[in-house]
């Protein structure tokens, strides 16, 4: 092909040269072009493949691109990579970041309305730890698909992972409450102390008067939510001291810190069918509130206390014969010009339905009598029978007061206007107040006792007593000892005088013998006189011994010594 420029005839040398062996025709050189064709095919197939693989591009905005890495951060759904963050840039106003995500073709369905994206990072919350795996693998973008098939390529990323994935079995319900308390998105929902769901979202009501919470109860436990279910805020610790002792009620330790919601059906017969999706419930503050029978419409009453109500706080119970009827909602001062005193106006909300059967009976009776069965009319009758409000001490330690409505014996009649708004309940001083008054009286009486002068007098008396004792010690006692000495001597003499060989004793013995003799003579004389009464007149007969002279002379000397010796 190259050297045809010099065509020559066979030279003489050719004959000497060996002739090469001619073989069959060589293969077509053009086949070599199959190689670049194949290469081109591979190249094209790569391009086509990547074009086919390429899914839609979407833009997700986040507050921060923390942990995100352009070109690396994957987008995962159920831990399957469905795309990758391609580009991360700031929004024009620099308020957030825009992440361009290239989804895979198979994940085309994620570029639809309702899809949600969030960044999965390690999170340590009160309710637990999540996303630990991302500590090692790096953050990724989680995705959840919605129902819609309407294409969408701009998304606002969630800052926290959604509590419920789309299509999860279960139902969501709406709760209404006055305030959120310690609940948060993700707070658990308990049924009989088993976690069956969580709080999905919350928002303020439009009028700002309350909070609406969305909860999601996982299947199959969602069937336990019935139209009659009661929900309560199970946050914190419920410590109650009752007749049975100290009772501590909590759901789980996590709820003590992070809060939670619990629900249960009230006891007794009720509707057992599962509640439909998005049923509205009221979220009570405690289990007791939740389980209490419905309160019915509240009524506002007002009480005017003439004495201090220190210890009566807003929220204190109002009890009727020991049954909690409502609670104090306001405590305010009033001024009475006439008396110049400050009565306290206590407002309370009462729920007559809490009286239960009694209220129904009262109503029925009032109807039977043809009266207005309104609470004010009923109350008028009760007041006429002596119903009075009293601020009583509920707790002696803390001095907490509560309002007790009780029938007071011998209550003085008071005017009651059933049509007044608000209804005004007459009051009497509380038992403790009475006690206080009495104690005060006693104290004033005690006050009047002149403790000062008594003390002074007592002091003086004690001083003079002191002088007297000193005198006794210094003068009287030595004299006394002398006197005692004299007495001792006297006694010694006396004992001498009384001893057996003393002259007195001997004289006394002689005297007694003489007296004995005299007595004998007297007896003889009396015997003789008995036998011869005439002898008194005639004297003694001759045959008889001569009788002693008349009695007067011998008796006298005998009588004198006998008397003297007797002591």
């Amino acid at each position: 092909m190259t050297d045809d420029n010099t065509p020559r005839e066979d030279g003489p040398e050719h004959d000497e040269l060996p002739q090469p062996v001619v073989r069959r025709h060589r293969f077509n050189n053009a086949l070599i072009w199959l190689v670049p064709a194949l290469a081109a095919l591979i190249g094209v197939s790569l391009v086509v493949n990547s074009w086919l693989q390429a899914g839609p591009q979407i833009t997700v905005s986040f507050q921060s691109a923390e942990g995100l890495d352009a070109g690396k951060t994957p987008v995962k759904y159920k831990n399957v990579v469905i795309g990758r963050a391609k580009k991360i840039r700031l929004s024009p106003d620099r308020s957030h970041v825009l992440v361009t995500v290239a989804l895979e073709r198979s994940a085309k369905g994620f570029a639809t309305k309702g899809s949600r994206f969030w960044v999965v990072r390690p999170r340590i919350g009160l309710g637990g730890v999540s996303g630990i795996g991302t500590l090692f693998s790096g953050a990724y973008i989680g995705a959840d698909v919605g129902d819609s098939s309407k294409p969408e390529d701009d998304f606002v990323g969630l800052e926290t992972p959604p509590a419920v994935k789309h299509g999860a079995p279960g139902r969501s319900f709406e709760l209404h409450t006055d305030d959120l308390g310690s609940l948060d998105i993700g707070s658990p929902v308990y049924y009989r102390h088993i976690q069956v769901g969580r709080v999905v979202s919350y928002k303020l009501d439009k009028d700002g008067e309350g909070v609406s919470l969305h909860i999601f109860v996982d299947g199959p436990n969602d069937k336990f939510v019935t139209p009659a279910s009661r929900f309560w805020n199970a946050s914190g610790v419920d410590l109650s001291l009752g007749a049975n002792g100290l009772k501590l009620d909590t759901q789980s330790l996590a709820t003590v810190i992070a809060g939670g919601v619990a629900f249960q059906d009230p006891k007794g017969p009720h509707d057992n069918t599962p509640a439909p999706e998005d049923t509205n419930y009221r979220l009570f503050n405690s289990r007791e509130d939740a389980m209490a029978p419905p309160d019915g419409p509240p009524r506002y009453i007002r009480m005017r206390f003439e004495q201090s109500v220190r210890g009566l706080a807003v929220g204190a119970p109002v009890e009727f014969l020991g049954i909690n009827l409502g609670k104090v909602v306001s405590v305010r001062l009033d001024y009475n010009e006439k008396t110049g005193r400050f009565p306290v106006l206590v407002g309370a909300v009462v729920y007559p339905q809490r009286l239960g059967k009694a209220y129904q009976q009262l109503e029925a009776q009032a109807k039977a009598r043809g009266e207005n069965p309104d609470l004010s009319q009923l109350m008028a009758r009760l007041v006429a029978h002596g119903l009075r409000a009293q601020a009583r001490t509920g707790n002696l330690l803390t001095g907490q007061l509560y309002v007790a409505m009780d029938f007071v014996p011998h209550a003085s009649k008071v005017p009651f206007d059933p049509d007044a708004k608000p209804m005004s309940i007459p009051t009497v001083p509380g038992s403790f107040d009475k006690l206080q008054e009495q104690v005060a009286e006693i104290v004033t009486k005690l006050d009047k006792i002149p403790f000062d002068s008594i003390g002074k007098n007592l002091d003086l008396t004690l001083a003079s007593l002191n002088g007297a004792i000193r005198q006794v010690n210094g003068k009287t006692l030595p004299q006394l000892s002398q006197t005692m000495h004299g007495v001792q001597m006297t006694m010694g003499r006396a004992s001498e005088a009384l001893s057996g060989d003393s002259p007195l004793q001997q004289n006394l013995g002689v005297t007694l013998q003489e007296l004995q003799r005299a007595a004998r003579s007297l007896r003889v004389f009396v015997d003789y006189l008995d036998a011869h009464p005439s002898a008194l007149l005639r004297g003694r007969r001759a045959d008889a011994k001569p009788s002693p002279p008349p009695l007067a002379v011998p008796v006298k000397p005998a009588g004198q010594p006998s008397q003297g010796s007797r002591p």
Partner: protein
Amino acid sequence: MSALPRASERGLVGCHVCGLACSDVPFRRDPEARVACPRCGSALHRRKPGSYGRTWALLIAAFIMYIPANVVPIMRTASLNDIDDNTILSGVVELWVKGSPDLAVIVFIASIVVPMLKFFTLGTLLVTSQRRSGWALPQRARLYRLIEFIGYWSMLDVFVVSLLTALVRFNVLSRVEPLPGVIFFGLTVVLTMLASMSFDPRLIWDGRDTDD
């Protein structure tokens, strides 16, 4: 006419294997004839058969393969918290940024400069030879020898990837995996080597009219 004679001008064709000089009669009858050496039986040809066509085809195929070799990542480095896919160029940049400029230069030369040099050189040789250009003949011959020599070195990147893949296997901590790009790159290198082999350097001189 050239001053120095060519084998064809003398009606000769030499065996590349045993060196036997044969008559070129069969070639004169049919330039595309398939002829074997009467002594050792290996194929005889004045010039490598279809050299231009083969070289062009292989060179083009190599060039086509070179595109995905640069676009598709060649290596995945997975460490504890990071998965990194690198193409050749991004690998070079990374090496440079991470403080090994010397390595970056080596890889850059072996993986970018050498293949490009081969495309450019072979292309030039093919074009000039086909146009029977008499321009810078000794330099072009030297160029050809150069690319034949450095051709092997462009396999460096493939070796790096395969070595790393075999050595760095610490499961969770660190892992290197080859990616499809390295296959394309290897194909490029092989194809360029085949291309340079199928080019007959004697063609450089065929267009020459004078020896001076």
